């Protein structure tokens, strides 16, 4: 009689991070692997915790903005946008139309910047070195635009309650108009390099897939959820600012795997360009800020408000409580990355070690926002 005899093996624990090139920051996950197969994955967060929410309680409404820049430090304009909509709601002011359009233009350009960053890092995770440089070449064009607008390349601090810090610089709109076609071509080039590449496809298609229901259960939003085929976009489902008047599509995927997440983002870049083009045609002349009494040390009436926007990474929400006065009583951040990240162990079911890197990359986490 032949009895099956199995080789005695022990699962190995591999510590990935907090200093690992694939973790995009200081994220740590402990993988339990059986050979190259992942048995279990435990994510650890908190290495970049700076106590943003507590800091915000000791600053004026105006100053909190600079901390917002530092939460999701790749999509600063989008964060500022969300927070200021909350403040404006409490203040009861409406920004002038020019400011609204300027905000949308900048936020959408920032979305492109963020997705380009994702593209480059994801290519790097897959082992290709060129996509990163391609993405940064394109990103640099936009960064210089941002510099001309806000004076800073990264931490812009440009949106203000009631509008903008100062008017858009002269020639800015023309410059955007000039850059958009170049950008489109750049995105196409990025597209050629990876999207159809069979080696890349074999690394991404079918990897880390979760079902739409699972994604909803985990609270995933943004490209992660849309990749599962759910047409959910705050710009459409709970429209804010002037988005209802703009014409754009919400790209969705089918299978919810790594590749769909990638593809959704690439398509979103194109949609963002479309939005910016429309805004450029419509942006009027006029004031850039609604005057607020005692600006910049304005007082905000007591009240609480929750505002959420569509950030590049998903549904970014701010819960703001004011007890009157110049400082917020509480600022709570609903961070999309944090929720998306929680789905990681589910996505890594039965994956290879190499897939862990790809799946983590496809979540496009920004640790500044996860840990706050």
């Amino acid at each position, binding site marked *: 009689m032949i009895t099956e005899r199995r080789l005695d093996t022990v699962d190995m624990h591999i510590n990935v991070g907090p200093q690992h090139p694939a973790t995009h920051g200081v994220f740590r996950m402990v993988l339990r692997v059986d050979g*190259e197969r992942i048995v279990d994955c435990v994510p650890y967060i908190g290495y970049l915790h700076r106590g943003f929410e507590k800091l915000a309680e000791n600053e004026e409404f105006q100053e909190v903005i600079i901390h917002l820049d530092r939460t999701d430090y790749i999509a600063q304009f989008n964060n500022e946008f969300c927070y200021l909509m909350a403040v404006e709601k409490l203040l009861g002011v409406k920004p002038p139309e020019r400011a609204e359009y300027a905000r949308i233009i900048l936020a959408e350009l920032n979305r492109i910047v963020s997705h380009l960053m994702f593209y480059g890092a994801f290519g790097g995770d897959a082992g290709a070195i060129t996509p990163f440089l391609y993405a940064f070449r394109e990103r640099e064009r936009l960064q210089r635009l941002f510099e001309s607008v806000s004076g800073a390349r990264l931490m812009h601090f440009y949106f203000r309650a009631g509008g903008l810090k100062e008017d858009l610089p002269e020639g800015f709109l023309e410059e955007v108009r000039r850059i958009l076609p170049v950008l489109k071509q750049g995105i196409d080039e990025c597209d050629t390099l990876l999207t159809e590449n069979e080696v890349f496809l074999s690394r991404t*298609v079918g990897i880390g897939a979760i079902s739409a229901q699972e994604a909803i259960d985990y609270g995933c939003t943004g490209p992660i959820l849309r990749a599962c085929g759910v047409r959910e976009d705050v710009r459409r489902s709970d429209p804010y600012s002037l988005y209802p008047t703009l014409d754009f599509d919400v790209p969705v995927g089918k299978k919810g795997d790594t590749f769909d997440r990638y593809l959704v983002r690439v398509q979103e870049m194109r949609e963002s360009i479309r939005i910016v083009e429309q805004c450029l045609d419509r942006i009027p002349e006029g004031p850039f800020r609604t005057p607020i009494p005692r600006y910049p040390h304005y007082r905000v009436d007591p009240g609480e408000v929750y505002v959420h926007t569509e950030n590049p990474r998903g549904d970014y929400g701010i819960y703001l409580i004011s007890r009157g006065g110049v400082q917020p009583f509480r600022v709570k951040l609903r961070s999309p990355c944090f929720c998306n990240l929680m789905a990681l162990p589910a996505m890594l079911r039965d994956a290879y070690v190499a897939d862990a890197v790809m799946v983590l990359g496809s979540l496009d986490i920004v640790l500044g926002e996860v840990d706050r």
Partner: protein
Amino acid sequence: MPASLDATLRLVVLTAFIFNTVLVLVYVERKVLGHIQQRLGPMRTGFHGVLQTPADAIKLLVKEDLTPTTADRWVFRLAPFLVFVPVFMMFITLPFTRELAVRHLDLGIFYLVSFSSLHIVGMIMAGWGSDNKYALLGGVRAAAQLISYELPLAFAILGVVLLAKTLNLQEVVELQATAPFLVLQPLGFLIFLISSLAELSRTPFDIPMAESEVVGGPMIEYSGMRWAMFFLAEYANLFVTSAVAAVVYLGGWLWPFLPPADLAGGWAAHLVGLAWFMAKTFALILAIIWLRGTLPRLRIDQLMGFAWKLLIPFSFLNLFITAAAAVYGGFLLLLGWVATGGFAYAIYAVSRRRP
């Protein structure tokens, strides 16, 4: 000249040649990759950065040589040498031109194939000796990958051996006076190229060293001199593998320009032959660098599947066709081209299949 002095001289020249080639290769790779990414690459040290690689080499030499406390000391320390020495040995029989080689071995191809698989041992030792899980994973990956691709590599070359009826690299080149073996062995050439990419652990098969997964794999704990050894071995291997491909499939120093028989011993013929040899080798190296600048990397299971399900059956087919041609007549070699088409289609079909 006494034999020992002669041998020493040859080895010294060879060593100098390897070091210089590696420096040039690293520089070329940096520059080409830079331009592929619309960058400049090294520019500061010397004219257009030509001194950058020597500077880096010196930096590596003077860096502290660390050994992790928990490492298996001797295994850890010995590993880089065991990676480098086999590669160095492969250079010995490489025919640069008709006369220019350290040794003309009658069993040249056999010698090459056997040494090309030896550096696996060093890799495994590095992976095990470092007492680091990334290194271990990388070492095991290297073992699996290099052993799997050793087979198609050897079988591909066996096709040429069947045609040439010799294992002497010199004679293999002489036989290519009219047409390189590429024409007769297209499938073999393709398989050889692909499997040598894997042997070299270069993109898209750089799985043992995967920077974003196992952070350098077996080399993760190495620093200074020993790390430089790995580096040296990697680039020397790149050169020697491309050179073997150039010699075996592209006619080495001979084709397409044939030095007239009376020039056979002259300097001019030597130089032209050497130029041809170098041109072919560098063309292959540039192609490999180009691939590195374009492709992501595969996953270990896909890599193994590719070797065992595609490369090995097709290398058998190639061997079979060649054997039939050797027995029943050369016209059967035309089948090789058909098989190449089949091979290309198979890769195409596999790459289109999605889970």
